């Protein structure tokens, strides 16, 4: 099979050789429609590459780590990141590079190019998915083309593609990728047109922007939108964007220019021309199509055509929401301003205002209303968290992808070292605790009085109060973490008895790693690199901090519910202490209501006569290193204060409000998976081995089991504690 073909040649209409996009372009050229000249690196080149670098077993191993239905989106992203890094580190075979160089020299030597993904099957009728794989514009010269080709190949395995693996039939043995290479047409106006309007039956849709199409396709630039009556061809509606902007080529890649007051990019005549092209293309392919187009020197040029994109109306399909998390740098800049300047200050202001209300002065009915008010305020901020803060976390991913493409490191998560050392609230809290522990360590008299449970040192007591003033709002589950001051004192005693822990990387290390990274970035892209790193750092910091800010609102709910419980404890109608806030509210409103406490759920029983015992559990590698120690399973606030130095933290999900115990542990094991979860982030800050995404970790591992945590391979080996020590844990699960 040929490695490089010209898409104008007749044999190139075969999707298994040139992919869906390539075959469609060849078909358009064959029917005399205006398309840019294009070469196609065939699927044969991909096959030579993946087989030469033995990448198929790597893909298979990464995809087989656990059942796909058990993977969280973050784990899928990590999986894609690891596969991508292996692609980036593999050499493009000499035969492929030579075949490309030969054709580029003669035809496309010095012009800026577009290097586009073209997967067989991605645009098959009935299964068309736009934007799952990557394309690059403004690529210049053979070295950049080879690098872009490798990135396009890797994008066969993006997190987006993995989400649609069933529809795409993803299988390492059968999946392949062709690459279309075209001179970049730098049209004055560009856009897309949809053969079926996504929301208005009986209509077509045209969207257009000034400048390059890339900004529209990746969602950076909002287009003008027209709905066209499919029968009459008349314009039925025009929706202009909030502001018109233009994407153009620059030395660093692309840049955005504001076009305040610019006219709409299309007039009625052009819209007719595009609509006519859409109908012609539909005739060529025999089914409604979506097209990308540009207007170059006054003439309409078609950039690609595919069957109308499959859209889902199934609201339970959350994949569209996940895809919306992939944000451009420009989008993240806007989101950062909103989060930093508006949302966080507003959240804190509201918490301050609520905290100022005097609960004791409220009668029972007013208190019930206050509990409901606080709960709805908390829920409102949780909603903001999902809509605005979670998408902002994509800043970490954007930097990770950029870093890996420049550095191609051995460890695909090395980029996180450059994000570490930011002034996160949780790290500040841990430093304060470390200072208190150091004070105990330096004062044997204080240490021994604390051991006896006495806190008679007024200076130290004042410092503990100051700590609680600053960080006392921490919440875990439905309880305030530091509600029992004795627990905090015990924790400080344990910390003081052990050697002080330090963060893995100091400011100097981070500074040096940053300098080395920036030196590796080509000069033209250095400013862009600095900006992406800056957004990544803020995103990383907020990923932790936002939870601590939100916890203030949860703590305010807990305070009000606790006040209600305190009053109800003296009411004869209430059988026992109520755990459900709804019951507290009801009992406050109706003093004669008889309320029974909720019953606890019954634990699942193991199969009769057979006792399952974990020996080796596979999760995701999330912090490099190997450590051995006894397990400490966390099921509630009290477990946090029982942690002994050197134990392995085992929990369902490490929350920012409990990460103060991390400096004491030797490793972290978590059921929830992903590299960007709090457990992984904080473990990395302290250089601890970490394995996440371990299925049923907290139900299979018991406190006291001896664990070896292999953070390189993502494996936890379990040696059960002796049988006569089982009683404590049985009690805990009864």
């Amino acid at each position, binding site marked *: 099979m040929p490695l490089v073909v010209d898409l104008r040649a007749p044999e190139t209409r075969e999707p298994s050789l040139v992919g869906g996009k390539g075959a469609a372009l060849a078909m358009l050229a064959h029917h005399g429609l205006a398309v840019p000249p294009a070469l196609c690196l065939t699927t044969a080149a991909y096959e030579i590459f993946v087989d030469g670098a033995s990448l198929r077993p790597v893909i298979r191993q990464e995809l*087989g*780590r656990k*059942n796909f239905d058990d993977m969280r989106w973050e784990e899928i992203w990590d999986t894609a990141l690891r596969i991508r890094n292996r692609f980036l580190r593999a050499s493009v075979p000499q035969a492929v590079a030579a075949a490309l160089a030969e054709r580029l020299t003669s035809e496309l030597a010095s012009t800026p190019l577009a290097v586009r993904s073209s997967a067989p099957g991605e645009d098959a009728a009935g299964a068309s998915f736009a934007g799952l794989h990557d394309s690059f514009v403004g690529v210049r010269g053979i070295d950049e083309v080879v690098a872009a080709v490798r990135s396009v190949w890797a994008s066969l395995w993006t997190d987006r593609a993995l989400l649609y693996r069933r529809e795409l039939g993803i299988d390492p043995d059968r999946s392949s990728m062709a690459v279309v290479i075209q001179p970049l047409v730098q049209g004055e106006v560009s856009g897309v047109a949809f053969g079926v309007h996504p929301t208005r039956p009986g209509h077509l849709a045209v969207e257009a922007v000034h400048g390059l199409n890339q900004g529209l396709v990746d969602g950076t630039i909002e287009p003008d939108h027209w709905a066209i009556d499919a029968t009459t061809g008349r314009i039925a509606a025009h929706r202009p964007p909030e502001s018109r902007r233009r994407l153009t080529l620059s030395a660093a890649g692309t840049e955005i220019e504001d076009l305040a007051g610019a006219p709409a990019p299309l007039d009625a005549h052009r819209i007719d021309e595009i609509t006519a092209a859409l109908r012609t293309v539909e005739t060529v392919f025999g089914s409604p199509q979506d097209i990308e187009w540009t207007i170059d020197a006054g003439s309409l040029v078609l950039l690609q055509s595919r069957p109308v994109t499959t859209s889902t109306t199934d609201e339970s399909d959350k994949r569209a929401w996940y895809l919306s998390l992939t944000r451009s740098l420009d989008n993240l800049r806007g989101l950062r301003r909103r989060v930093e300047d508006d949302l966080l200050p507003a959240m804190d202001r509201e918490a301050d205002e609520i905290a100022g209300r005097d609960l004791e002065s409220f009668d029972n009915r007013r208190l019930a209303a206050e509990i409901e008010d606080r709960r709805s305020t908390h829920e409102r901020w949780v909603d903001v968290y999902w809509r605005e803060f979670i998408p902002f976390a994509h800043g970490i991913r954007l930097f990770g992808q950029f870093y890996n493409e420049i550095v191609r490191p051995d460890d695909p998560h090395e980029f996180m070292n450059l994000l570490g050392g930011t002034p996160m609230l949780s790290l500040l809290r841990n430093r304060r605790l470390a200072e208190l522990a150091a004070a105990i360590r330096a004062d044997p008299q204080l240490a021994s009085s604390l051991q006896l449970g006495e806190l008679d040192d007024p200076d130290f007591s004042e410092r503990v109060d100051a700590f609680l003033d600053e960080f006392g709002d921490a919440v875990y589950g439905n309880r305030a973490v530091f509600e029992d001051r004795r627990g905090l004192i015990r924790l400080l005693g344990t910390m003081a008895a052990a050697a002080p822990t330090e963060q893995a990387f100091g400011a100097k290390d981070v500074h040096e790693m940053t300098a080395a990274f920036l030196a590796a970035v080509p000069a033209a892209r250095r400013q862009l690199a600095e900006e992406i790193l800056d957004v990544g750092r803020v995103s990383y910091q907020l990923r932790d901090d936002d939870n601590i800010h939100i916890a203030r609102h949860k703590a305010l709910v807990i305070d009000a519910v606790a006040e209600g419980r305190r009053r109800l404890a003296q009411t004869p109608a209430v059988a026992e202490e109520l755990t459900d806030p709804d019951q507290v509210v009801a009992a406050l409103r109706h003093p004669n209501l008889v309320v029974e406490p909720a019953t606890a759920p019954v634990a699942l029983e193991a199969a009769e006569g*057979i006792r399952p*015992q974990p020996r080796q559990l596979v999760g995701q590698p999330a912090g490099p290193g190997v450590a051995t120690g006894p397990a400490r399973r966390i099921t509630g606030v009290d477990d946090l204060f029982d942690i002994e130095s050197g134990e392995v933290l085992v929990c369902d999900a490490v929350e920012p409000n409990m990460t103060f115990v991390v400096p004491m542990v030797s490793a972290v094991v978590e059921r929830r998976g992903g590299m960007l979860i709090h457990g992984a982030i904080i473990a990395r800050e302290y250089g601890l081995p970490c394995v996440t995404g371990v299925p049923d970790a907290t139900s299979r591992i018991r406190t006291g089991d001896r664990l070896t945590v292999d953070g390189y391979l993502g494996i936890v080996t379990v040696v059960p504690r002796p049988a006569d020590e089982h009683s404590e844990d049985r009690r805990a699960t009864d």
Partner: protein
Amino acid sequence: MSHDPSHLEILRELLTDQLLAVLGTHHDGEPYTSLVAFAATPDLKRLFFATGRATRKHANLVADARASMLVDNRTNRPADFTEAAAATAVGIVEEIAPDERTDFEEVFLAKHPHLESFVRSPSCVPLQLRVSVYMVVTRFQHVIELHFD
């Protein structure tokens, strides 16, 4: 909870579907393995197999009854690394007592009817591995032990 089938289900499937197991024995610390036809009792606590009285594995088991048995469903393809499952049974081997002979033949010959003449030959010894623990391996490295209390 995980979407994976339970390890007990995987074990039961392996012990039902697979015809052969690798039997591990030793002689004076020298390890030895051999392929044997096997069948599991419904409660999975015993694995039946048979061997000639003069075989090396029989001699080894007479000297030390401790043994292991590996059953797996690999297909000799790269996908085995993530798709194949294996179970190792560890326990003590003993000869089938005369009053257990009917049980043995019912279970063993239902699975391996073509071995009837072999099993009924005077030189053949019917045996059972009394399992104390199974180690079930999935996804190449995920290991769960199933202990009989």
